[in-house]
């Protein structure tokens, strides 16, 4: 163990406190020691910057911060406030293993990664960043966004569905959306194959200012929640397209309860019988085709008809009729939503 000046000792101690790394320095001359001191201090400073960076983004993610604070902190951390970004939220059923976090760190610049909790990680991906794994896509996105920004005048809500956009803009934005989605797929596939973990991922619409991060995170988290609830067979959700799931999720509980009562009267089931639900779902998947459903379920046609009649007895809904089938589907989604709410309460 070499003997160092107090200043170098202090710097090495700070480095250990900050990072957990123990370093020893072999310096033969005061010049070499001076040089080592500068390097260790820079390491500490870089680490602090990085740490604050994460904490700042974490704060911004979970709560609204005053605009002045955002601008001041972003400036100090050399973060660009006004930049087109997309937020990806990755969630694992169990705690995200170290390997998964390592992989994300390798795929994205560290300053974009925001740990939320032990199962969730957010990535505030800057679309103009050429340092990510998706650099080829990144460039394309930048090109596309150059156009988007000029034409959309930085409207955060602009997307391909905006009907007043000129055709060229539509085409460009649509390409951008495809690439953003492709990136999402790449994150999922890479974590599946490399970390051997199953994840679900939601991504946001493009936003243009860090000040929007909190609301964008809320929206993306909601997408993840709705996705898990209504579309458990999928693992990728876009907060801009949640379909009927969002509609049902946003319904007031009283309206949901009334609807369920209309279907089941005062005997609203806690959960649907699994066998009946599997049968009904296959029937709906097969566009109400009895022969095809019976064939797929290896079931006699009469057994299927008996089960459909059972549902009709309980609910008054004849699933062979499109309107009734639709009502039943909505009712089961609402039941799902209500059960989930109850289990959270």
């Amino acid at each position: 163990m070499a003997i160092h000046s107090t200043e170098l000792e202090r710097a090495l101690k700070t480095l250990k406190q900050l990072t957990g790394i123990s370093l020893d320095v072999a310096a033969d001359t005061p010049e070499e020691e001076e040089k080592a001191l500068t390097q260790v201090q820079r390491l500490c400073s870089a680490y602090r910057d990085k740490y604050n960076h994460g904490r700042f983004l974490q704060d911004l993610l979970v709560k609204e911060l005053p605009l002045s604070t955002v601008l001041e902190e972003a400036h100090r951390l050399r973060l660009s406030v006004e930049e087109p970004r997309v937020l990806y939220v990755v969630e694992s059923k169990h705690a995200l293993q170290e390997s998964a976090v390592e992989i994300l760190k390798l795929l994205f610049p560290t300053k974009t990664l925001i740990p939320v909790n032990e199962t969730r990680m957010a990535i505030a991906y800057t679309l103009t960043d050429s340092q990510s794994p998706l650099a080829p896509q990144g460039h394309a996105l930048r090109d596309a966004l150059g156009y988007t920004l000029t034409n959309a005048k930085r409207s955060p809500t602009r997307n391909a569905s905006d009907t007043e956009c000129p055709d060229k803009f539509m085409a460009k934005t649509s390409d951008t959306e495809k690439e953003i989605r492709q990136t999402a797929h790449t994150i999922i596939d890479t974590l599946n194959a490399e970390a051997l973990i199953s994840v679900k991922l939601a991504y946001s619409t493009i936003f243009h200012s860090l000040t929007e991060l909190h609301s964008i995170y809320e929206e993306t988290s909601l997408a993840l929640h709705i996705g898990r609830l209504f579309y458990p067979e999928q693992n990728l959700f876009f907060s801009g397209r949640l379909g009927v799931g969002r509609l049902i999720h946003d319904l007031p509980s009283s309206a949901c309860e009334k609807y369920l009562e209309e279907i089941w009267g005062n005997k609203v089931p806690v959960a649907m019988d699994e066998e009946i639900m599997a049968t009904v779902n296959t029937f709906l998947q097969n566009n109400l085709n009895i022969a095809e459903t019976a064939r797929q379920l290896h079931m006699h046609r009469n057994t299927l008809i008996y089960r459909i009649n059972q549902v009709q007895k309980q609910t008054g809904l004849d699933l062979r009729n499109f309107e009734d089938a639709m009502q039943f589907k909505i009712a089961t989604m609402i039941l799902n939503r209500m059960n989930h709410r109850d289990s959270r309460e």
Partner: protein
Amino acid sequence: MASLSLKGIEKIYANGFHAVKDFNLEIADKEFIIFVGPSGCGKSTTLRMIAGLEDISGGTLEIDGKKMNDVEPKDRDIAMVFQNYALYPHMTVYDNMAFGLKLRKMPKDEIDKKVHNAAKILDLEHLLDRKPAALSGGQRQRVAMGRAIVRNPKVFLMDEPLSNLDAKLRVQMRIEISKLHNDLGATMIYVTHDQTEAMTLGTRIVVMKDGVVQQVDTPQNLYNAPCNLFVAGFIGSPQMNFMDAAVKVENGKATLTVGDHVLNVTADKSKALIDGGYDGKTVILGIRPEDVHDAADFQGADKESVIEATIKVYELLGAEVYLYYDFGGAQMTARVNPRTQLRTGDKAVFALDMDKIHLFDKETELTICN
């Protein structure tokens, strides 16, 4: 390597969506099995259940005789290659391949040996120091394969690994994957929606639709003896021609009427129709485009198997010509010799090779005879 056994595998999601229904399959050691089917048929879900990325709702999965239903993916000794792979941009090819092993805290010399071995198999040795940005699309794909190979798994699982490549590269990589299977002698399960990929790669193919296995067989048998209308239509390009045909039995012999044409059927097919009680019923007649011949060139033509039609489209593909025409209310394709003189608008005389026709029950869509 390993054998796999899937017994009555089911996947039912919390919302009741029944994605995979009663999936049964025995996969022998070193087999190259393909799961093929249209989008949403449950092929990827089945693969993900084998990988452990999806819970199994029912049935049993065994690898080498050991039940794997509740075993963590990392403990199943599998490796996966997906469609959307990402290489770590700041790492060399060597480090990209070594990364997974480093995470597992494998000794350095062992990692080195495995990476060099995989690089040799994949012909990547000269590229080990390069960064991904300096690689071509095919080389990147091989690095992604390399990351799976270094794990030295019992089973390789591949989910549409070539889908993002252009057509030319896909053909090249298809050959490389086939070679890889031979070199590694590994058990491989490969998911694709592309029937050409399935036919060229697999030792056996599992055709799926709506979560149900339709047929498991060798590529040749699937092509020659499909078990139902779906398999017949899905396998083969251009697709098999289908038309409604009315069955009439007279003097112990069946004939098929398509539109105004009466077609004689061979003795074995006639027997199958009579035994199945199809007299007076309508069946579906299927015939592959290569079994419809220019009558002038076809030795086996007789007047009961000859039809006349007007060519709607002439398509020259170099080694063959596709002729599109209407017959019996259905759009048909004939794959004929490129030297044919027939062109769009011409009246053509086609001979159907009645030995090669397939007949399907119109209601159940099951094969009556091939």
